[in-house]
């Protein structure tokens, strides 16, 4: 294997709003490279079919991937005004279709493998690249690629200002889940008279009409949610145990005559993705041994810890692992702990 070649560009594409502009930018970059140097330039557009394509034989998913590549082919023709010029080759490929991909790390692995096989030295990413669905993918992917020696760049494409979307289009499953949850809650608190069933239905209807659009960030899945709930019931006793330990620890420290505290702030990149897991982890961190989540952006946590002891616990990552287990299942629990990943660093304040 030879040295990664910066004249070989890897462009992962996905059906995003900015994919067209990203392709245009990549072609532009390739053209500039070709004109400036005499080395042959290779442009690789690859599609990684999303988690939706868990079944490798799912024809419609692979169909969507090849469809997208067809479109990319048309766009390259458009931008080159025909075939690519001498010294510039374009490759279109679907990769990783035979794997179960789930975290940004998995996507990165697939892309890195492809890049390594072809000595690719540079990657251009679509700023809206997000094949995994709702969980933010771009940053972790960038970090992962850059760590493995690729030159990574986000395509500077125009896009609409992106704000946190609070209300999303409500669908029937969303209405039904909100309705069921609020109706159950109502009945639990009511004395079970016939009238209660009636008023409960009215209340639940109102609640679901008002709250269904903001209650979920993505479509609740009939198969996944119950499994997550079951795993949650395993998690809760563990969390309670951790909380009990936390409190004994705090009680000991607080009541100790010399107040043996050594507070620091640790910046900590958690290996969880998506709103619900991140929120769960942040709250769990706050509840357990000597650690307090100060701020969270995406998946970077600023955690204030009271003692050395609690810092070690954080690096051991028991909670993080448990949260991954709840939301993603057992195999996800096996990701290395934050200490091993080197994802914890102490924040120092000047002066």
């Amino acid at each position, binding site marked *: 294997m030879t040295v990664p070649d910066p004249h070989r560009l890897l462009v992962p594409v996905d059906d995003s709003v900015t994919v067209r502009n990203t392709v245009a930018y990549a072609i532009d970059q390739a053209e500039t490279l070709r004109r400036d140097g005499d080395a042959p330039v290779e442009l690789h557009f690859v599609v990684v079919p999303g988690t939706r394509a868990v079944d490798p034989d799912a024809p419609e998913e692979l169909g969507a991937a090849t469809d997208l590549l067809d479109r990319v082919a048309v766009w390259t023709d458009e931008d080159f005004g025909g075939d690519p010029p001498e010294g510039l080759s374009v490759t279109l490929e679907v990769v990783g279709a035979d794997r179960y991909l789930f975290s940004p790390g998995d996507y990165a692995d697939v892309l890195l493998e492809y890049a390594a096989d072809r000595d690719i030295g540079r990657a251009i990413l679509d700023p809206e690249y997000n094949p995994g669905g709702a969980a933010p993918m771009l940053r972790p992917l960038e970090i992962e690629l850059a760590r493995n020696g690729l030159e990574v760049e986000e395509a500077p494409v125009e896009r609409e200002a992106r704000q946190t979307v609070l209300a999303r289009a409500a669908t029937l499953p969303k209405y039904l889940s909100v309705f069921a949850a609020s109706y159950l809650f109502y009945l*639990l*608190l009511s*004395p079970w008279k016939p009238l209660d069933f009636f008023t409960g239905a009215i209340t639940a209807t109102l609640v679901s009409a008002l709250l269904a659009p903001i209650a979920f960030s993505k479509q609740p899945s009939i198969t996944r949610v119950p499994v997550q709930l079951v795993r949650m019931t395993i998690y809760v006793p563990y969390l309670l145990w951790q*909380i*009990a330990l*936390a*409190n004994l620890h*705090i*009680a000991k420290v*607080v*009541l100790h005559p010399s*107040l043996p*505290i*050594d*507070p*620091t*702030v640790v910046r900590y990149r958690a290996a969880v993705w998506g709103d619900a897991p991140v929120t769960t982890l*942040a*709250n*769990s961190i*706050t*509840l*357990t041994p*000597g650690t*307090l*989540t*100060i*701020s969270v952006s995406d998946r970077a946590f*600023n955690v*204030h810890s*009271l003692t050395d002891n609690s810092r070690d616990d954080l690096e051991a990552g028991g909670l993080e692992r448990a949260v991954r287990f709840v939301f993603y299942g057992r195999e996800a629990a096996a990701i290395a702990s934050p200490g091993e990943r080197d994802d914890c660093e102490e924040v120092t*304040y000047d002066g």
Partner: protein
Amino acid sequence: MTPLEWAIVALAAVGAFFGGVAAVGIVRLPDIYTRAHAASKSDTLGAVLALAAVALAIQTDLSTIKAVFLLLFMFLTNPTAAHAIARAAEDQGIRPWAAENREGDP
């Protein structure tokens, strides 16, 4: 006393103890972040144990369920509040107290 009564008394007593720890912690700890630790953890456990005692003591199904729900919501809302306070403090640029300034500065 029946075992149930013992359980209620024990829960209430331990709850009160942790409530006390929270209060002592708020007085003794040096800055807003460390105090938030005491307020978020010990206080949660204290309140939750007291509520658990209440749930056992009431014994009528409905109110017990309500007490259990209260307890669950304490677990959700308390850390969120602590997080909001700590984050506001960080936004204000308040520096965490460190062990080096144990002497001198408070």
